């Protein structure tokens, strides 16, 4: 897979501490099509109480409070009905077991039964739950954020290094892993220093430095044809919750940055929080004319039109930036798009001959990393072209 260096503005680097904003009045938990609601209107719910089931896996309440009904909300995946829970700010739990000290003695079947019970999505990426296989050749715990200026993974590992290393160690034993690696961006010297001091305590875990290129392709950096499992550190944190506390994680890390963001930080917010008030706080103090709010990264993200966005497990960042007007010019036939495509597609060909068989094949192969639009000197929006053709195909 071809990768390339992306220009990074050092001014957009986020602060190294996590800022908790956990006092939202209401929580909105989206009810996706296959979710079964388990609570009724005006019912009191506790924190970590099951409120919905997805494939018999529990989706729990991130707060304690009263169910106020159902309301349509904006999520990153579109508009969905959501269960509205009014926060009583008591954080009451039914069975607060505390930290399970025996988690290090778990066997694979214990892990399987826990993850059959709790719905733990692949955080920052998908709404689909994490799955485990036994006898893995290589377990990769990734601390690198693929999108430029997103720092959830990096800040989390800096703040919870010892706890998470312990969990990685236990997990590698449970899954009977041959080799365990923790991948770190080679430019993150502070993290490398911290890891070097402590990693000797865990002889099973090896450190692997990865160059700062886009898109992040970890599988290529390891032995070919081996049975690999890659887990991002934010997802590992959710796994850590289930293993140690036997409950679902109720918070989510979100990077907020951009040249127009008043502060550049990583926030810890409750799942289901309405972000509108938080975003407003981070908008620039002086009025700016052309502001864009982008969610989930500048390379692959979406522009937010309505600020009322609900925090879901696959939401990872908010960028407040100056609106850039890229005027599309006629193609100069330079082939930069072909040169950077990580899956060896030919974006210009897809643009020129959308109905050709090869174009259809390339559209299927496309990983929507948007590298082609990023490098095109004629500002051709391949993202739009691909999306338009995909929509036509679906019709």
């Amino acid at each position: 897979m071809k990768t390339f260096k992306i220009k990074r503005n050092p001014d957009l680097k986020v602060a190294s501490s996590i800022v908790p904003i956990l006092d939202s009045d209401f929580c909105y938990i989206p009810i996706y099509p296959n979710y079964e609601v388990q609570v009724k209107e005006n019912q009191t719910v506790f924190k970590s109480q099951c409120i919905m089931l997805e494939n018999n896996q529990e989706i729990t309440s991130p707060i304690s409070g009263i169910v106020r009904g159902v309301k349509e909300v904006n999520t990153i995946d579109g508009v969905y009905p959501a269960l509205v829970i009014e926060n009583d700010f008591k954080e009451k739990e039914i069975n607060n077991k505390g930290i399970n000290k025996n988690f290090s003695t778990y066997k694979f079947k214990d892990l399987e039964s826990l993850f059959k019970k709790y719905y733990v999505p692949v955080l920052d990426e998908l709404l689909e739950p994490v799955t485990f296989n036994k006898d893995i050749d290589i377990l990769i715990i990734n601390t690198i954020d693929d999108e430029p200026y997103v720092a959830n993974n990096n800040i989390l590992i800096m703040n919870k290094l010892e706890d998470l290393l312990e969990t990685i160690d236990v997990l590698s034993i449970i899954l009977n892993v041959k080799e365990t690696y923790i991948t770190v961006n080679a430019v993150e010297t502070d993290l490398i220093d911290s890891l070097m001091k402590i990693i000797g305590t865990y002889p099973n875990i090896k450190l692997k430095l990865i160059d700062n290129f886009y898109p992040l392709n970890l599988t290529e950096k390891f032995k070919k044809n081996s049975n690999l499992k890659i887990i991002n550190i934010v997802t590992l944190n959710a796994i850590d919750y289930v293993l140690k506390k036997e409950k679902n994680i109720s918070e989510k890390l979100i990077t907020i940055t951009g040249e127009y963001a008043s502060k550049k930080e990583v926030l810890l917010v409750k799942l289901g929080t309405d972000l509108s008030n938080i975003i407003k706080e981070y908008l620039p103090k002086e009025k700016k004319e052309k502001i864009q709010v982008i969610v989930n990264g500048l390379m692959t993200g979406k522009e937010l039109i309505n600020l009322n966005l609900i925090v879901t497990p696959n939401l990872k960042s908010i960028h407040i930036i100056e609106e850039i007007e890229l005027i599309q010019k006629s193609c100069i036939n330079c082939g930069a798009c072909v040169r950077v495509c990580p899956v060896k597609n030919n974006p210009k060909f897809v643009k020129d001959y959308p109905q050709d068989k090869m174009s259809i094949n390339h559209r299927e192969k496309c990983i929507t990393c948007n590298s082609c639009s990023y490098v095109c000197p004629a500002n051709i929006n391949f993202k739009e072209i691909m999306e338009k053709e995909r929509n036509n195909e679906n019709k």
Partner: protein
Amino acid sequence: MKTNKVFFHSNNTIESINKRYILVFLPLILFGFYKNGYIVYSKGYTNIFGLFKPLLIPIIGFVIGYLVTFILNKIKFKKSENILNNYIVPIQTMIIGMLMPIRINIFIFIIVLLILTIIYLLIFQNKKYSINFIAFSTLIIILISMLVLNVKEINLLYLNAYESAVKLDHSIYRLFFGFNNSGISVTNVILVLIAYGCMNFCLSYKKEIPIYLLFGFLIVFGINLILGANFSEILRKIVNSSFIFIITFVATDQKSSPYNNLGMIFYSVLIIIFMTIVGQINFELSLLIAILLVSIITPLLVKIFKKTKFITK
């Protein structure tokens, strides 16, 4: 939520590509000024106009490309744009200026280039395919100059006043460092190689084409050697022409060369075949003619064989 917009863009813009070309050509143009202007003037073989002629011709080439694009856009498309930010034509016309022989008549150069640039823009500006404008214009201007100046041998057109008056040392070492007979600003092989090295960092430069061409030509020259050709004669032929510059900056012309790997290999092979054939008649212009012919026939081949995925242009 809008999904189809681009929020982040690299520094790889048409303007940055154009600026990079200007920057890498600057040492070549200055060397051309030294070799064809300063030395000739200091030896007393030319006047003050002759001193600055090697500088003026590439600059005039650039200005013609710039002005024609600007004016045509204003008249035809009713839009006034930042030309360097949108078009590569000024760089193409600058390269034509750099390839010109020193004895070129400046008025012929201006008039013919002006007409050709207008025709090129009117025909090919928004087309997917284009002929190699640099090769085409250079050939036309040189042929018209030969006719007007009544020069029968092309080599005589490339000699400056000093070179034609005295017998100079033509050792390969001297030729390699630019003291050979070729276009005004394209003689110094070392500077061309440095320029190629700098362009390698540009994503929009087709760096593979010169490699394929050089590799292909090495095979052809190797076969020639086996068949009994003289090694130093072959080397002298390569260095004593704009060969290296043409494969580096004319064959890689953005608009007329393929951009995918298979296409580039196919394009290079065709150029080598054509050059080998045309080279039997005229070596100096054979590479330009080969590039021009290939740029004309590849779209036709694409149409005939419908192998667009193979030879994308």
